[in-house]
């Protein structure tokens, strides 16, 4: 389990300008819908944008705090 604020903090640690919206899908604090908007995605493919978010959440996924996530990324302009 991990609370939404910690998810946001982990992503911002990698992408400081990220606008992050986190929704707990099951009420169990381990299945999340995560939407990230950041200028750090500029010039990256969608695959690479998602890889960046996965990298930010690597430890929390590995130790099981996050069991499943669905992800949407968007490039922030400027």
């Amino acid at each position, binding site marked *: 389990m991990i609370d939404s604020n910690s998810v946001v903090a982990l992503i911002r640690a990698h992408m400081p300008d990220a606008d992050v919206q986190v929704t707990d899908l099951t009420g169990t604090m381990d299945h999340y819908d995560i939407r990230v908007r950041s200028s750090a995605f500029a010039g990256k493919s*969608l*695959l690479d944008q*998602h*890889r960046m978010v*996965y990298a930010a959440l*690597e430890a929390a*996924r590995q130790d099981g705090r996050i069991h*499943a996530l*669905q*992800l*949407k990324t968007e490039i922030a302009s400027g």
Partner: protein
Amino acid sequence: MADVQALRDEISREIDEHTILIYGKGTKDAPRCGFTLETIQFFNHFGYPFEVVDVLENVPKRDVLSQLTNWPTLPKVFIDGQFYGDTDILGPMAENGELTAVLTKAFQAKGIKPSVVM
């Protein structure tokens, strides 16, 4: 210890054999993960043949797949030999028409038309 090269060979053979290939948890008839089920339903909608390979219990193969794709999660989707991530990637591609173009090109080359989906 698992033979990494043998697993790599097995994966490239599978990718070669199936124009749309999903590595997931469970089978097409009995998916064992919500995201795998979602991916199967996603491709059912397009009417092209696809294959699901269950790697839930095969940790060495999952590790090799993650290394090959630099992608940590399942399911993993390959189309025409190319890695496309999961439905988080394919969903937006379907919305902007890119996916239909990719599928049409891949299957036209093999002379396969989509079946009519009700």
